[in-house]
């Protein structure tokens, strides 16, 4: 429900969303399209089959200048080892070692600054925390006037190449400064749908023109937050504030792949002793309900004897699987793939099974070996 007193911010594409028939809802303090007239199911399937354009301008963008490796004070990712032209996923940790946010950081070729993208809902707090934690070592400059687009799906490369010749050379997790129809952009071969695709950072004054050009391509449909959520859930990707938050550490969240090898050996990040202290008591897992009923966030997970062993943190319907999917935390004794459990949906136990993620295979454009 809309809270009438809430003053919502708008991205530079607000007028375009309305023109496209976007159904606007409050999200992370912004008025954002949850869907367009095509609807969540079609938008989701179109992104997997063809190409979808997402406005993610509400996310926080910033540049970090100075001794940027000191970012390792608050992330377990390998920052110092990030090569030029590469982007990386990292967790931002509280002093206690729990997850304050997840974010992307990039080292652009020939530039000493790091380019950061953090979540919309947490950006003010993140930026203050980063600035404070790196005081005297590095300086953070936020870029509230920049916009961010995601162009996702198997035809994204073909579409973007038309407007930015050569961009198809970029492979997964690479980042480059490029121009799109003359507009200066930072383009990375990343996204949050599990599909191949790009994220495109532009000046706010250029983004509407670029978005219209891309939407004008036959392959491209505008995609709202509803399908963004179902796509990332099928791809097994975490949503901050739901699947990860300040009550979880990287080990519990099953995100140890984002902790640098050097960092694991050095044990030099907040909460390292706890995070590296062996199998955690609870673990994030994928869950496949056996029936058709979706199990939503907050649904209790029980063992087959009815004892509560965990809770769902994201759950819904996976349009590409034509079946419900979920993720959540369970006691680690129940975390193995194939473990049968029950989900208490409207008070009734519904059979489900712990399942590997991603639910839909990732189709990233990795470099040819």
């Amino acid at each position, binding site marked *: 429900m809309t809270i009438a007193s809430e003053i919502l911010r708008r991205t530079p594409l607000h007028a375009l969303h309305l023109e496209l028939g976007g159904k606007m809802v409050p999200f992370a303090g912004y008025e954002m399209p*949850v869907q367009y007239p095509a609807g*969540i199911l079609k938008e*989701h399937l179109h992104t997997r089959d063809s190409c979808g354009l997402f406005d993610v301008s509400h996310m926080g963008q910033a540049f970090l200048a100075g001794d940027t490796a000191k970012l390792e004070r608050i992330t377990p990712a390998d920052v110092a080892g990030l090569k030029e032209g590469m982007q990386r996923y990292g967790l931002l940790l509280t002093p206690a070692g729990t997850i304050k946010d997840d974010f992307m950081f990039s080292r652009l070729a020939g530039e000493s600054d790091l380019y950061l993208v953090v979540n919309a809902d947490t950006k003010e707090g993140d930026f203050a925390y980063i600035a404070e934690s790196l005081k005297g070592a590095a300086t953070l400059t936020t870029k509230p006037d920049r916009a961010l687009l995601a162009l996702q799906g198997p035809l994204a490369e073909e579409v973007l190449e038309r407007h930015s010749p050569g961009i198809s050379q970029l492979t997964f997790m690479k980042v480059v400064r490029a121009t799109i129809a003359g507009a200066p952009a930072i383009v990375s071969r990343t996204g949050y749908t599990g599909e191949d695709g790009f994220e495109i950072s532009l000046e706010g004054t250029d983004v509407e023109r670029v978005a219209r050009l891309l939407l004008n391509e036959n392959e491209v449909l505008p995609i709202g937050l509803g399908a963004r959520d179902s796509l990332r859930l099928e791809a097994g990707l975490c949503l901050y504030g739901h699947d990860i938050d300040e009550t979880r550490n990287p080990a519990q969240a099953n995100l140890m792949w984002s902790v640098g090898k050097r960092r694991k050996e050095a044990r030099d990040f907040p909460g390292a002793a706890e995070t590296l202290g062996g199998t955690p008591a609870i673990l994030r897992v994928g869950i496949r309900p056996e029936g058709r009923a*979706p199990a*939503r966030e907050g649904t209790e997970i029980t063992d087959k004897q009815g004892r509560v062993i965990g809770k769902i943190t994201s759950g819904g*319907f996976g349009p590409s699987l034509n079946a419900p999917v979920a993720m959540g935390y369970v006691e680690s004794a129940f975390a193995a793939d194939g473990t049968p459990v029950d989900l208490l949906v409207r008070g009734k136990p519904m059979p489900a099974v712990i399942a590997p993620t991603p639910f839909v295979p990732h189709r990233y454009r990795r470099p040819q070996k």
Partner: protein
Amino acid sequence: MSEVRYTDQHEWIRLDGEEATVGITKYAAESLGDVVFVELPASGKTVAAGGEAAVVESVKAASDIYAPAGGTVTGANGVLEKEPSKVNEDPEGAGWFFKMKLNDKAEFAKLMDATAYGKFVESL
């Protein structure tokens, strides 16, 4: 002649002789978006006016469907279990949810008619 009435929770109810059919309105179906799951009541279940009778889930969220009037469920639209999208395609026809026998037709008569419901939707 059958008569149709509407609730402020966006259910419709059609009375044909002794049996009533219940579903959700076009407005409700459009607001929900793509329906992906429907939980229907079992025959013989007794429901109070305004009581939870069924569940409809879109990609985004679950919503309760309330009985527009008190009575006993006499059947449900099993087609929706395999094809929940029928709710979006034809909410006030093939996308019906369940049938019931009413305890008191006066409860039915008190509900909004099509004109009143139309005005109610416009006011939202």
